């Protein structure tokens, strides 16, 4: 019972600590959007609209109030779930929440797919590298870990498109679904899940075929970090006392590796997973652009282009929420797996 209690306490502490982090992120976003020179209304209408229209719109958005008042309104609005209404050309008039609701599933699907690719490839490379320390395989593996990380994700995407979609014609070039068929009815918004829920295996295959290249692109770039971490940790656990002890007891080398060394080398992967999400989102913005993927990243860039102020703000806030949420989840998860973390 006391163990259970301490885990709960740990989780609650993390939750409380996350609050200032979220507040700071929101404040940074506010500062960037309001205090850095550049006026959204002016950018939206240029010199074309009469001054009276600009003033009216500024008043409507509350931009004529002092900064502190705007800040209070901004924070109150966020925590009451009111993100305002889009101003821009594409989604003008729709509520920001509704627009984000349409776009978020695409990014979630891309992110999960990429993480699966990244962890599978990264962990395999890391383990193979670590077992064969200082052999040729290891050198190749380490080189992979260092270089794959610095390849521009959009360039890799273009090259994979060129190879698999343009030359070999194995996979579709871009977008989330075939133009000729209509996506499954929206339940979760994730095409893969929705098509399975609808019992349509044909639609599921279409969705997977479209997911393949973007996920491979982003997953490959992210795998380098996994490979490095796993290799470093495996080298540490291979020489650990409990592995030596197992060896001394005459346990087979294979069993030692799989039951003792691997298991403990994989614990830090959860922390890496958490750290990778920030990189993942940055990569997703670029990958979505390369593959014309209709998600949050594209939404952010599109709204920046037309200076759709409430939409920019809303998108960034949702990203902040997700990041803070993931950091809490990762901390709690590592607390569950490795009790030492809690103290």
């Amino acid at each position: 019972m006391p163990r259970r209690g301490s885990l709960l306490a740990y989780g609650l502490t993390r939750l409380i600590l996350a609050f200032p982090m979220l507040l700071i992120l929101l404040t940074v976003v506010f500062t960037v959007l309001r205090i850095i020179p550049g006026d959204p209304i002016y950018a939206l209408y240029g010199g074309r609209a009469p001054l009276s229209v600009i003033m009216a719109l500024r008043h409507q958005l509350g931009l004529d109030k002092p900064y502190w008042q705007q800040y209070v309104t901004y924070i109150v609005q966020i925590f009451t779930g009111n993100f305002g209404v889009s101003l821009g050309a594409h989604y003008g008039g729709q509520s920001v929440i509704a627009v984000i609701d349409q776009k978020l599933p695409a990014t979630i699907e891309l992110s999960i797919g990429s993480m699966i690719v990244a962890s599978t490839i990264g962990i395999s490379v890391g383990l193979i590298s670590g077992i064969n320390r200082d052999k040729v395989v290891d050198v190749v593996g380490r080189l992979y870990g260092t270089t794959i990380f610095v390849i521009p994700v959009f360039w890799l995407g273009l090259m994979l498109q060129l190879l698999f979609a343009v030359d070999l014609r194995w996979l579709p070039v871009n977008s989330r679904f075939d133009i000729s068929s209509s996506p499954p009815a929206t339940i979760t918004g994730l095409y893969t899940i929705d098509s399975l829920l609808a019992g349509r295996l044909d639609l599921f295959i279409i969705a997977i075929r479209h997911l393949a290249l973007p996920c491979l692109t982003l997953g490959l770039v992210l795998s380098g970090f996994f490979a490095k971490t796993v290799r470093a940790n495996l080298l540490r656990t291979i020489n650990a006392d409990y592995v030596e002890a197992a060896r001394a007891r005459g346990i087979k080398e294979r069993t030692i590796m799989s039951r003792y060394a691997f298991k403990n080398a994989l614990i830090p992967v959860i922390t890496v997973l958490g750290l990778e999400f920030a990189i993942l989102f940055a990569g997703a913005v670029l990958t979505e652009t390369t593959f014309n993927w209709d998600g949050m990243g594209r939404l952010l860039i599109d709204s920046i282009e037309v200076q759709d102020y409430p939409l920019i703000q809303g998108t960034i806030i949702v990203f902040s929420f997700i990041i803070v949420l993931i950091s809490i989840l990762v901390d709690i998860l590592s607390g569950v797996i490795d009790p030492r973390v809690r103290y």
Partner: protein
Amino acid sequence: MLPMLEKRRTLAGVMSWIGLGILVAFILIAVLAPIIAPYPAVGPNSQFLTPPNPLCGACAPPSFSHWMGTDNLGQDVFSRVLWGAQTSLEVMAIGVILALAVGFPVGLYSGYVGGSIDKAILLVMDSVYAFPGLLLAALVAAMLGKGPFNIGIAITVIYIPLYYRVTRNQTLSVREETYVEAARSLGAKPWTIMWVYIAYNVLITIPVIFALSAADAILTAAGLSYLGLGIQLPTPDWGLDLSVAQQFLTDGAWWTSFFPGLMIIILTVGLSFLGEGLNDLINPLLKKGRA
């Protein structure tokens, strides 16, 4: 144990030298672009009046007169790639130097005074650091407008927390050294202790961060340009050229996107080799100094 250390040292040394070589080569390319580029960066310079591939304008595959082919406007890709080194290095230098100029003093101060001021600054910096850098930079870039200088400032936002973190942590440990305590007991003022006694010993960790953040800065700047938030046409820039080239990829024009990307990779690989090599070289030094 000793021979192993020696071997590692040399591997780190080789990596650093390769990295430094690549960096110097790119600086030379940027400086000498006006002399070594066979064509001007902007304006059609293809000899094809009737383009062989009408789908992508005046683009032509690599040939003897255009090593890396020409783009949709008939511009020589090889020349643009060389000129592009100027843009990339300029943005990177502005971003990284500004981040150092802000992050280092703040980190030094925060680490030296400690207490609640330190905790507050740390919380702010860590929160910013947790946010995807590219998104934050995109936001700032959109507000500031296009151009190398503005993009340099935009990417600074990402690296300030990094320089701050490293400087602060190093300051925390150097602060406890005996010679700092000696200086304090001799009546040296905090300012003098920070800048005369501590700063120099903290500075030793900076080259590693400098190289690694420079590699990341090149990627981020290219990403911003690729997204259309960075550099404006017709300025030659790798990320921007890639985003233009993307439209013609399905017509089979691979050369307009392949080569700018290759330049980014070579430069960033070089910088991360330099960073990781230096890290292996400097870290044992630091540990030895501690012992």
